[in-house]
């Protein structure tokens, strides 16, 4: 566990220094842990666990948009779990239950213990269609089609700067739309 936490902290430090690959690896690494905790929270609240992916994505949005609140000198895991816990409580509340989420839900999860989630999340997909076309196209190109910023710029006849702006705005808009539902 200590080793995992140290690895995450190291990855996040690299990410803050501009290492996109490290950031990508970090998000991939934390996702199974978040997923397991979301499932457990849903199960305990008597909710169908197949909604866990919406919660995972909600947490990932918050992690991304609030990443500047992480203190480089502090370990990453407590910061992550605090955000995850907050979002999980929100999600369960939204589903009509008041529930106490135990912090151990997160910290005791063994990575890799959870099966891959195959169901696509519905909430983000639904909101995607409400975005301005530019932002939607850029998001689609980078996320689903897996193109780089550079390739996306070429495909959509935009500058790389414009792609970056559209991507950032699109992600922020999506996160806000998820929040409004609460």
């Amino acid at each position, binding site marked *: 566990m200590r080793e995992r936490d140290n690895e995450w902290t190291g990855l996040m430090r690299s990410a803050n220094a501009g290492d996109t690959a490290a950031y990508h690896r970090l998000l991939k690494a934390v996702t199974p842990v978040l997923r397991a905790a979301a499932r457990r929270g849903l199960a305990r609240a008597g909710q169908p666990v197949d909604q866990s992916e919406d919660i995972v994505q909600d947490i990932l949005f918050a992690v991304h948009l609030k990443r500047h609140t992480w203190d480089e000198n502090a370990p990453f895991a407590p910061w992550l779990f605090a955000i995850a816990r907050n979002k999980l409580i929100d999600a369960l509340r939204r589903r009509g239950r008041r529930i106490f989420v135990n912090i151990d839900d997160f910290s005791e999860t063994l990575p890799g213990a959870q099966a891959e989630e195959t169901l696509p999340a519905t909430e983000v997909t639904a909101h995607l269609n409400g975005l301005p076309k530019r932002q939607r196209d850029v998001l689609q190109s*980078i996320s689903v089609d897996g193109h780089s910023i550079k390739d996306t710029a070429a495909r959509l006849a935009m500058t790389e700067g414009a792609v970056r702006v559209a991507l950032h705005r699109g992600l922020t808009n999506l996160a806000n739309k998820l929040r409004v539902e609460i």
Partner: protein
Amino acid sequence: MKTDDLIRALASDGKSRWRVGNLLTVALLAAVPVSVAAFFIEMGVRPDIATAVQNPFFDLKFAVTISLALSAVALSLHLSRPEATLRGVVLILAVPFLLLAGGIAVEMMLPQRVAWITRLVGTNSRICLTAIPVLSMPFLAAALVALRHGAPAQPALAGAFAGLLSAGLAATLYAAHCTDDSPLFVATWYTLATLLVVAVGALAGSRVLRY
């Protein structure tokens, strides 16, 4: 959208973000002219300011309000982190508290011309109760805008500290107008006015500081 796809999009979004502290500094600096203008238009400094500054009890008011504002700024920033709790750090508020308590103790030991209850009641408590909340509003609005970039675990608590820092800054302005210099007056009326702003901040925070 699959989570892996979302992660790819998030990882490509490398836009660097403002730190909450920098944003709070800029926002509060932007609010200063608004409150200062309101202060000079509505009340201004007291006429005997030149002699008042030689009175240590007049100066003490600024030590109390400035240390209150600074410690509340520090606590607001601390609470803007998702994993932060008040444990331990809240002791920083002892600085303004002890300054004020010390002032009261010293004043009590000195011979006085007027009774302590008269000093406590003062002459312009009603202005104090209005001026501090009104002057604090630009600061509170600025602080809340900046703190929205944070991720507080307890939005109402974070809002309360935003109220506290705003009241501290507003009281620093108001203290230059206020002719009641007794620490007893400050402890009573400044505190009441501050609590009003803290309540407004907590209420606003519980709505706008959720992330």
